[in-house]
Each structure stands twice: as C-alpha cells, then as structure tokens.
C-alpha cells in the first residue's frame, strides 16, 4: 500500500451500503457497512495458545483430574473444557456433554447466541404489545424482550436452541441506528439494576454512583446513563459473570443484590438458600462458580483505573489513518503491543514475564486450594461411611461449601489471577483456611 492511498484513507468515512435495523441478526449484513470490524470478528474462529489461556478446547477434567472429584455428582464432572472464541459459543454449547448427556433449560440461550430478535418474537407470541420495528429501548421493545426471555428460559434446551442461529452478533452490543454500544441481555439489565441498589461502593462505575445520588425511583439503566468508557466493559459483563437459574421458571439471575464479588454472591446464595448440587461423595450442599471475569476485574486495579475489558481484549488497531477496534476478541497476550504497550512502556517479553509471575503464583495457590478441598471431601466421605450422622457432619459440609465456592471462584475465572492478583490470592487463602478447618472439625468429633 502506498502513501497516496494512506493519505486518502485518512479522509475516508464509513459509507452505509445496506440498511440495518433491529431485525438484522446476521453479522454478514452489518459487515457490508463495516468490513473491517466484520473481518476481525470472523477471526474469533482462530485457535491459539497461551500458558493458561488461549483457545484450544482441551478437556479440563483430563488436564486437572482433581476436578472430577470436586464436581462429583454434577454435570461439570462429565465435560468441562477450556473456552474459546466467540464464533464457537453456539456450537460448543450444543455439543457439550453437559447438554447431550444431561437435561438443560432454555435459559442457556441467554449468553450463547444473538437473541434479541428471538426473545422479542417469543415475547410478541406471548402477547406483548407492538412490533419488531419498535426500538429495543422503547417501552414496547423492552416489554417484548423480557416477556420472551421468561418464555424461553422456561423451555427445554432442544426447543429453545432451535430459535437462535448466530453466536453473539453486532446487534447484541450495538444500536443499529447509531452504532453506539448498548446492553441487550435481560438478566444483565436486571442484575445491574439490583447492583445499583446494593450498598457496595463502585468507584469504577461513576454513572452508578451518580444514579445513587439521584432519586433512585426508576431502575439504573446503563443504556441511558453509562459513559462510553463504562459501556466498553458493561457489554462484556452481560455474559462474563457468575449466574444461577432462579426457580421456579429457571430465570437467568445474577446474584448482585449485595454487590459484586465472591463474598457478596455467597451471601446472596445463602440468603435465598440456593445450592447447585449435593456433592456425590460428601453430601455437601455445593455451589458451582462460573466465569466471574466481570466481578473479578471489578476488584482489580485496572477497573479502578478506568481500564475497560475492550481496552485489552479489543484494542484499537490502526488501519492506515483510521483506528478500529479489533473485534477478534481473544487473549491479550497474543497481541501485547496493542493491548498493553499503549499504556505500559516495556518490551513485550517484559510484559509477558510480569503476567507470568502473577499467573504462576495463582496457579500454585489454586493447586493447594484444590488439594485441601479434595482432602476435606475424602475426610467427610470416610466419616459418613464410618457412620457419622448428618448432625455431626453439618459443620464440615458447610465448610466444604464455603471452601469449594472460593476455590472454584478462582478456578472458573479465566485470567488465572491477572484481573485482580491480590484479591484472587486472598480468596484462595480463605478457601484453604475453610477446607482445613473442615477436616479439623471432622477429626474433632468423628
């Protein structure tokens, strides 16, 4: 490419070749107007590799056999893989043995597909007012979305998955009119509203602090109130969070009423009396943590410093004179110069070494936490075989619930400690403390 082109590029503007609206689900259509973003978006099919991340769908149950014991009796002991690019989210969900060998609800659709249209159509079927032409943010649009959300969560998986056809797509994060970022996932909208009403300080979300200072009558609405920089994280927080399916209708729910983070979520589950499964070996009322990236990032110095998910996972790339966001969402370690060096003036090797130090410390501690938890599980199992009463095993089992929740909160978080190094280590320290105390309790009164 030569200079004349580059000088022209500098003046180039986006010209809209096709019209896109609230019904345009197919990213290829959007891609005609925004070829650069579409090209990188498609590259999320690439398979890559880093020490603790990357996108090879390896079986975690084989690379870390302790997980089979830890999740014994739960579907995660059947099939549990390293996650990969956005392009795979729909197929990976359909193919996992957690779905093929266990029964799952329509709730699963919430984060593995482009579903604004699917939800709204189902909502209209269920009697919501208006048409698909209504803006998603309009009263009708929202009503349709939430009605359909409730319907589809309550469906069986096989029925629900027929209603969606694309992984996360442009329309899930962008307003087709203005291209502005927006959030569209119902459970997230409900979750962030309850978070805003929580007592937890949220310095990294100024717009929530502003809302709190106001009348607090209407719910906090990110699409109306969040800054652009906040949206660069909120769109990811739609899915990269811990969740559960609230009975009776399996509504996808984020446990944020007490705040974000490990302790706040645990308190919430204890309050509503939620348990994911009864552990097969120990009989403990266990919890399963899932990808709390958004929550862990919130505890870290980057969030506090206003650094968004997109700053690292979708850095700007200069194409000629224009800068575009890299829609090949992946591990930043595969793109250090753009993801990190804009803010950190160190050579790539140095930056990788810093991350490695943080991640190795974490993985060593995680191993200790897993060992301690497995050892407690064994101790409880042994005691109950030896005839210990549920009465006598109540305390040890409750301690297992606490320990396992903490251990898993880190194991399920996908940055191996990077998003919040000290907080991650703190959580693992507590996991170890509870697990060992549980074993002591078993030994004290067998």
């Amino acid at each position, binding site marked *: *490419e030569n*200079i004349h082109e580059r000088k022209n590029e500098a003046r180039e503007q986006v010209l809209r070749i096709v019209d896109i609206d609230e019904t345009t689900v197919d990213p290829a259509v959007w891609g005609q107007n925004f070829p650069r973003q579409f090209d990188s978006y498609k590259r999320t099919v690439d398979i890559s590799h880093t020490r603790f991340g990357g996108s090879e769908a390896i079986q975690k149950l084989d690379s870390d056999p302790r997980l089979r014991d830890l999740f014994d009796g739960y579907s995660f002991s059947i099939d549990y893989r390293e996650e990969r690019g956005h392009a795979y989210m729909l197929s990976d969900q359909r193919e996992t043995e957690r779905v093929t060998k266990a029964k799952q609800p329509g709730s699963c659709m919430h984060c593995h597909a482009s579903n604004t249209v699917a939800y709204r159509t189902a909502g209209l079927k269920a009697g919501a007012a208006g048409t698909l032409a209504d803006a998603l943010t309009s009263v009708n649009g929202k009503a349709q979305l939430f009605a359909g959300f409730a319907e589809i969560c309550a469906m069986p998986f096989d029925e629900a998955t027929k209603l969606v056809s694309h992984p996360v797509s442009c329309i899930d994060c962008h307003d087709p009119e203005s291209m502005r970022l927006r959030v569209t996932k119902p459970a997230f909208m409900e979750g962030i509203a309850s978070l805003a009403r929580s007592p937890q300080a949220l310095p990294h979300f100024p717009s929530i602090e502003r809302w709190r200072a106001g009348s607090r009558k209407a719910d906090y609405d990110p699409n109306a109130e969040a800054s652009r920089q906040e949206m660069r994280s909120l769109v990811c927080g739609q899915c990269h969070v811990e969740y559960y399916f609230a009975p009776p209708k399996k509504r996808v729910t984020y446990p944020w009423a007490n705040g974000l983070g490990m302790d706040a979520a645990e308190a919430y589950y204890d309050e509503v009396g939620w348990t994911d499964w009864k552990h097969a070996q120990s009989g403990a009322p266990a919890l399963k943590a899932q990808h709390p990236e958004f929550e862990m990032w919130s505890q870290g110095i980057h969030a506090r*410093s206003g650094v968004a998910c997109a700053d690292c996972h979708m850095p700007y790339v*200069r194409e000629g004179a224009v800068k575009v966001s890299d829609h090949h969402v992946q591990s930043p370690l595969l793109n250090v*110069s753009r993801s990190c*060096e804009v*803010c*950190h*003036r160190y050579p790539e090797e140095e930056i990788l070494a810093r991350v490695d130090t943080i991640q190795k410390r974490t993985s060593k501690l995680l191993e200790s936490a897993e060992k301690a938890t497995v050892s407690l599980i064994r101790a409880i199992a042994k005691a109950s075989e030896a005839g210990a009463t549920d009465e006598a095993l109540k305390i040890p089992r409750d301690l297992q619930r606490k320990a396992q929740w903490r251990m898993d909160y880190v194991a399920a978080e996908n940055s191996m400690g990077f998003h919040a190094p000290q907080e991650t280590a703190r959580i693992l320290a507590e996991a170890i403390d509870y697990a060992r105390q549980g074993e002591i309790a078993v030994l004290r009164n067998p």
Partner: protein
Amino acid sequence: MQTPSRTLGYAVVVLGIALGVFVGVSAHTFVVAKGTSYLSDDPTACVNCHVMREQYDGWQKAAHHAHANCNDCHTPHDFVRKYLTKVDHGWRHSKGFTLNDFHEPIRITAKDLLDVRENCIRCHTDLVSHIASPRADSDFEDTPNCVQCHADVGHGPAR
C-alpha cells in the same frame, strides 16, 4: 553451478537496484509527506504525518504546550547535532512511513531519550542543579531519567 563470487556479484547488483529504488521512493515520501517539515520547528509540520497525530494532540493538552514545541525537546540545541538529528529523523521516519514497518505504538529511541533529557535539563538547569549534573549528556545512569517520574510532561498522561 555458480561460483560464490558470481552469486556475490548478482547480490551486489540486486542490492544496488533495491537501494536505488528505495532511495527514490523515500525521497518521494520525503516530498509528498513533507519530510522537509523536519527542517522547520513548527509542530504542525510534524503532523503532516498522521502517525504523529497522537503525540501532537497529546502535546497540545500537556503541560508544555505553552513552553516548548516538538523540537525544543526532540532535537539537541547545538547547531551541528541539531541538524544531524533532523536528517536522521527525516530519513528514519520517512522510511518508516513509506515501508510502514515500524513498531506500534511508536517508541522513542534510547538516543532520542537522551537528547530529550538534555533539553529538560537545559530549560530547568537551576531547578535540578542539586540532582542532575548540567552535563546531561554524561552517562545516562548518572543523571536521573526525568521521564521516569514526569512521564506526562510532553504528551499528557501515559496511563
């Protein structure tokens, strides 16, 4: 089968041509992209290259906007070294811009960082006379790297 010397011969010729072409191209750049801007001290001259835009915008917001222009910091102030540097920049940057082969984000070179520090001290001699030898060009280790603490003076906050 060719003798080494023959191959060498070809190599030289090829190289020669390549070099010729390259000089041509870059000279072309130098004109089109107003590489001559290097001879002026007008900051707007620097942004003839859009790749300088970021630093230019940063500079306009930074503490020194009112006090120093690009070359006050980025070129030495004794006549000879000043123009040597300008030629060096003009050449390297034109080359980079033409071949588009430079590291991004763009990073100041070690040599240029020394020139910059020399300029910091040139303007702030009195203030730093207790902490820095006026001979800023002296061994890098021995005079503090102003930018380690004042990273944002030139172009605003780095983080």
